[in-house]
């Protein structure tokens, strides 16, 4: 199994979820993050005091999928999340040794 971690633009979340549903990837976990990379931040001023804000709001999506589904999952994410502008985000893939479904102890691929 592989863990696919995608950092995307918040306003792209709905599209990405549609795309994944499209290819039958249901299981996923999502949370809000702030990210920094090449995308320029913006200036904020509070009572004359300037702040350079370069941690921008992003959404992180994690999906653990069987190794043989990584390809399509990744491309589904990439295509649906892309705007072509800096800040679109990244996808990271790593190994997962084991997966267990708490409810009934199902293991690995069955648990996804």
């Amino acid at each position, binding site marked *: 199994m592989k863990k696919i971690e995608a950092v995307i*633009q918040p*306003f792209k979340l*709905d599209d990405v979820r549609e795309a994944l549903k499209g290819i039958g990837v249901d299981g996923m976990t999502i949370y809000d993050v702030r990210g920094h990379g090449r995308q320029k931040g*913006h*200036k*904020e*001023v*509070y009572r004359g005091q300037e702040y350079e*804000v370069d941690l921008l709001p992003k959404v992180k999506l994690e999906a653990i999928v069987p190794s043989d589904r990584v390809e399509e999952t990744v491309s589904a994410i990439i295509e649906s999340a892309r705007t072509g502008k800096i800040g679109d985000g990244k996808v990271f893939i790593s190994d997962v040794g084991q997966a267990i479904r708490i409810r009934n102890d199902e293991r690995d691929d069955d648990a996804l």
Partner: protein
Amino acid sequence: MKKTTKCSLMLLALLLLPAVAAAQDEIDKGDNAWILTSSALVLMMTGPGLALFYGGLVRKKNILATMMQSFAMMALMTLIWAVYGYSFAFSPGNAFIGGADYLFLNGVGAEPEGSIPHLTFMVFQLMFAIITPALITGAFAERMKFSAMLIFMTVWATVVYVPMVHMVWGGGFMSGDGALPCLDFAGGTVVHISSGVSALVISLFLGKRIGYPSERMRPHNLALAFIGACLLWVGWFGFNAGSALAADGLAAFAFVNTHFAAAAAVLGWLIVEWIRDGKPSVLGGITGAVAGLVGITPASGFVSPMDAILIGFAAGVVCYFCVAVLKAKLGYDDSLDAFGVHGVGGTVGAVLTGLFARESIGGAPGLLEGNSGQLVNNALGALLTWVLAGIATLVIIYLIDLLHGVRVTEQEEHVGLDVTQHGEEAYQL
């Protein structure tokens, strides 16, 4: 109505025999206490009331910009009113617009206007001039340039609101002694129809927010919206009962009618929602309350408490269908339903005022008391307001778009107006 007679009388007095006026008019401190209190309540309706009601309904990235649109009116309209707004609304003029006597509040001081100081009357009216444009902002929330908004409101207040006030309350042709006397106790036409219809026009002109309706745009903080709605309800007592311009029995009627209509509208909206959507919601309850308050505004000093319950209920149900069904059908994006609640609710109220008005309460009979003319007048008045506000707004927004641009860039809309228009973020939670 009450206002008109009172103040047109005053104007006459001022013109012809100030001495006499001074003689017959004396300040009643009870009345003054109530109208000062009411003025404070009406300001509270805009800030924090309306600002929270609207701010809680937008997405997190736009709350500050949304609240700022209301807050800015508290500053902008005040200066406009002080310099020329009040004068062109209430100093003697023709059927459509007032005169220049009160420019820079010249001659507006502590002397009695009716039973309250002229300044008290002026500032009470000012609070209405603040909230009316603020109501419009609900329609273009989350996508309009702050600068464009300021320009628009300045022009709109000058060519739409001020004349409307003069026509209906300032001695113009829709007021008591005018050609087309309409009953509008506290602003069904002047405030709600004018702002609601203008809201519709702008939302059509601007087009939808990016991602609407596919993307999820749920209210980001209903707790804030709830606070706002409750403060609107409380403040509305000043809005309607204050419009009696005295702490008398009529004020008591307006106060009770206001409360009853709000309550009935809450039930009306929730019942329909419960049946149609399966659950009664908090957002539905507070929206219904506002719809009822809008509906009773023109009628509050003319009908009985039991009539108020019917008017409120009707406003709640009708507004629900406009907001939940009609809007979806027509597919325009009135972000926060400024039209669906104020335009529609105001129209319902204006018409029903002509239906229910009772001579024994506000001195004017309606259709139910056999005076069909009043219903016609009020309907005509509402129609006229629709036309005037609609056309004027379209022209104004079109020109501003041409000369300055009204909508933010796609990128700015994605990032949010708080950061792009004001360089701030609301929460560091």
